C-alpha cells in the first residue's frame, strides 16, 4: 500500500516529467484509438456484409475449353468424341431435373431457374429494333447443329419471384395489372409497355404465340400485367429487343416446350439458367465439388457474384489494412520513444533508487513503485487519448474512406477510358452472363468496377468494448516496455554503487 502512496506522491511532485510522458502517451493513444476503432469497425462491417450477402452461384458453359477439345479431337483424328454435334450431345444437358438435383444440397439456401425460348406472334407485331440500333439474327443453330428459325418474341419462364431479378432490383416495374403467379400452370404473362402500346394491348387481353418451326402450333397467353423498363439503355440479347420479351411462369412455358417436343420438327430451342443462393461464402468450393460428383460436365464452371462483394468492400479492406499498418508503426515508434524517455528518467532517479535500497526497500518493491508510476501516467494518457481519439475517429475514418473511393474510381475511369468506354455508356449486369471464352465490354467494367459498383462509403467507427480492452492491453504493453529499463537498472545495480557514483 505504501508503494502505491509513494508512487502517487512521486507523480504529483515531479509534474513536468510525468506531463511530458503523459503527452506522448496521449498522442500514441489517440492514434492507436483511431487505428483500432477503424480496424475493428471495418472488420465488423466486412463480416456483417459477408454474413448478410446473398452469395449466388450459377453454371456457365466453358465454350473455350469445349472448342479446344473439339479441335484437339479433330487434329488427332480421335473418333471417340465423334463429330461436333455428337460432342455437344455428350455434354450433359442442363435441364430442370438436374438443376433440382444440384439445388438439393446442404450448401444451398434456395434456388430458382428460368427457361427461355423464342416464339412468333399471331396478330401482334414486335417492337422495331431500329430505334435501338440493334441488329438481330433471324435464324440460329439448334443444339444438334441443325438450322432453326428464331421467333420474334423472347418468352421467359420463371420458377419463382426471386428469379425475376429485374423486378427485384427495380429495373422493371409493373405499371398496370399485376404479376402472374410464378408457380401457376395458367398461361398468364406480363409484357412491356412498348409492346402493349404498339399492339394496343391491355390487361386481360389474349395474345397468340406461334411455334416458329411449325406455324400450326399456337399457344394463347392472357396478359395480367404491363411493366415499364427503367434501365438507362435497353437490355438486349442477340435475338431480341428487351421490349419484345414476354414473361410467364416456368410451368406455363414448360408446357409449351413439352407440347412442341411431341414432334421433332417443332421442337423449340430452349435455354435454361439456374441460380443457387448459397449458405455462405465459405462453401463455394465444396458446392462446386459436389456438383461435379453429381455428374455436372467438366465443361460447366460454377461462377459466383463474389466479385461484386469484393468490389463493394475493397475500400474498407484497404482502409483496414492501412489502419493495421499505421497501428504497428505508431506502437513501434511510440514504444521506442517511451523506452528512451524512461532511460533518461531512470538516470535522473538513480539517486532515489539508491536511497530507497539503502534504507532497506526490497528490489521488487522499488520496481513495483516505478511500474505503478509508469502505469498510472500511461493510463491517464490513454484515457485522455481515447477521448480525443473517439471524437476524431469518425471524421478521420470517413475522410480516409472518401479519399480511397475517389482514388479507386479514378483508377476505374482511367482503365475504362483506355478501352474507349465512357463511364455511363453501358448498363452493367454483373454476373448475368454465362462463362464466356473472353471478357467483353461489360466484363471489363465489372473487373475494374463499373458505375454500378456501390462502394461502402460510410464507416461508423465507434469505440466499442473490444477497442477499449485493446487500448488497455496496449497501455499494459507500453508500461512493460518502458518499465523494462527500470527493471534492468534496479536489478543490476547495488545501492552502494549507485550512491558512491553520485558522491
Amino acid at each position, binding site marked *: 500500500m*505504501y508503494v502505491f*502512496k*509513494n508512487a502517487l*506522491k*512521486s507523480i504529483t*511532485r*515531479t509534474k513536468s516529467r510525468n506531463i511530458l510522458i503523459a503527452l506522448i502517451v496521449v498522442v500514441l493513444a489517440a492514434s492507436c484509438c483511431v487505428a483500432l476503432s477503424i480496424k475493428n469497425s471495418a472488420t465488423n462491417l466486412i463480416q456483417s456484409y459477408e454474413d448478410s450477402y446473398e452469395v449466388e452461384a450459377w453454371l456457365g458453359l466453358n465454350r473455350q475449353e469445349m472448342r479446344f477439345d473439339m479441335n484437339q479431337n479433330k487434329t488427332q483424328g480421335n473418333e471417340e468424341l465423334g463429330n461436333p454435334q455428337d460432342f455437344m450431345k455428350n455434354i450433359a444437358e442442363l435441364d430442370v431435373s438436374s438443376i433440382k438435383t444440384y439445388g438439393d444440397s446442404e450448401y444451398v439456401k434456395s434456388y430458382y431457374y428460368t427457361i427461355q425460348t423464342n416464339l412468333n406472334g399471331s396478330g401482334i407485331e414486335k417492337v422495331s429494333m431500329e430505334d435501338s440500333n440493334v441488329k438481330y439474327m433471324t435464324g440460329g443453330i439448334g443444339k444438334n447443329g441443325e438450322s432453326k428459325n428464331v421467333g420474334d418474341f423472347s418468352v421467359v419462364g420463371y420458377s419463382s419471384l426471386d428469379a425475376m431479378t429485374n423486378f427485384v432490383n427495380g429495373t422493371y416495374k409493373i405499371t398496370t395489372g399485376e404479376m402472374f403467379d410464378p408457380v401457376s400452370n395458367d398461361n398468364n404473362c406480363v409484357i412491356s409497355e412498348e409492346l402493349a402500346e404498339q399492339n394496343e394491348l391491355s390487361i386481360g387481353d389474349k395474345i397468340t404465340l406461334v411455334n416458329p418451326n411449325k406455324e400450326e402450333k399456337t399457344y394463347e397467353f392472357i396478359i395480367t400485367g404491363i411493366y415499364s423498363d427503367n434501365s438507362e439503355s435497353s437490355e438486349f440479347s442477340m435475338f431480341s429487343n428487351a421490349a419484345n420479351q414476354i414473361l410467364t411462369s416456368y410451368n406455363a412455358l414448360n408446357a409449351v416446350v413439352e407440347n412442341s417436343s411431341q414432334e421433332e420438327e417443332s421442337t423449340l430451342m430452349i435455354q435454361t439458367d439456374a441460380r443457387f443462393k448459397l449458405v455462405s461464402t465459405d462453401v463455394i468450393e465444396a458446392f462446386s465439388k459436389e456438383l461435379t460428383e453429381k455428374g455436372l460436365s467438366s465443361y460447366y464452371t460454377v461462377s459466383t457474384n463474389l466479385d461484386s462483394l469484393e468490389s463493394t468492400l475493397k475500400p474498407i479492406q484497404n482502409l483496414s489494412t492501412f489502419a493495421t499498418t499505421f497501428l504497428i508503426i505508431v506502437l513501434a515508434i511510440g514504444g521506442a520513444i517511451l523506452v528512451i524517455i524512461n532511460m533518461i528518467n531512470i538516470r535522473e532517479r538513480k539517486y*532515489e533508487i*539508491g*536511497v*530507497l*535500497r*539503502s*534504507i*532497506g*526497500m*526490497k*528490489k521488487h*518493491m522499488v520496481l513495483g513503485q516505478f511500474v505503478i508510476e509508469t502505469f498510472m501516467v500511461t493510463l491517464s494518457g490513454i484515457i485522455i487519448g481515447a477521448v480525443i481519439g473517439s471524437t476524431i475517429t469518425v471524421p478521420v475514418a470517413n475522410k480516409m474512406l472518401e479519399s480511397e473511393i475517389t482514388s479507386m474510381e479514378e483508377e476505374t475511369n482511367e482503365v475504362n477510358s483506355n478501352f474507349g468506354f465512357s463511364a455511363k455508356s453501358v448498363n452493367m449486369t454483373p454476373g448475368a452472363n454465362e462463362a464466356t471464352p473472353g471478357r467483353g465490354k461489360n466484363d471489363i467494367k465489372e473487373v475494374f468496377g463499373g458505375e454500378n459498383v456501390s462502394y461502402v462509403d460510410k464507416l461508423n467507427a465507434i469505440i466499442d468494448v473490444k477497442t477499449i480492452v485493446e487500448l488497455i492491453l496496449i497501455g499494459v504493453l507500453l508500461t512493460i516496455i518502458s518499465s523494462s529499463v527500470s527493471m534492468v537498472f534496479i536489478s543490476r545495480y*547495488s*545501492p*552502494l554503487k549507485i*550512491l558512491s557514483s*553520485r*558522491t
Partner: protein
Amino acid sequence: MSLFKLENVDYYYDNHVKVLDNINYEFEPSKVYAITGKSGSGKTTLLSLMSGLDKPKSGKIIYNDNDISKIDEDKYRSHHVGVVFQSFNLLPHLTAIENVVLSMDIANLKVGNKKQVALSLLNEVGLDEEKANRRILKLSGGEQQRVAIARALSFQPEVILADEPTGNLDMHNEKQITEIFRRLAHEKNKCVIIVTHSNSVAASADVVYDLEKAKENLA
C-alpha cells in the same frame, strides 16, 4: 555482552590493495563508539560493511550472534540497523515527516499514527512541526542531518551507524548532533557507532577505535 562484533574482517578493492586488514572490534549497547582514522583509512568502507551495503572479503560481521552475510540484507537495514549517511540520503520530493514515515513503512512498523510518531521523533532531534512539514531541499544541512537521524531511529533499531554525521556541519550543529547521539546511547540504550575524523566527536565517544592504530599494531 557484545551486540555487534567484527571478526578478522578484511576488505580490498579490485586493485587488491587492502583497505581493512584483520579488523576485530566489539560493540555493546548503551555506548557511543567512534571509529577514527585519516581519509582513505577505510572508515566509510567499514561502515558500509557493518550496514550490509557491502560484504567483507574475509572475516565475519556478527549481529546478535548472527553472521549478517547469512541474513536478508534488506531486512537487516530496514529493521535492525539505522544508518545515518554522510550526505544524508533523503528523498528531496518528500517532506521531513514523509521521509521518516517512508522508513517506517518499509520496516512495516505497526504503530497507530505514523505521522504523529514521526513528528515526535523530529521534535526529539530538534525540528519543530513547521520544519517537519518542509520538503528536504528547504532545510539547512544541520536540519537535514537531524531528519536523517530521526529516520534512522524511526523503526527503533538497536544499532545506529553514522558516517561522518557532523562532516558538513558547523561547530554549533556538531555539538548538538553529538549530544543527540550521546542521549540515544545513554538514555535509550542504543549502540551508536560513529565513523568520524573529528577529534571533538571522538572525544565525546565512550570508546574510540582508531583504524590507523589497528594497522600499526598489525604491522
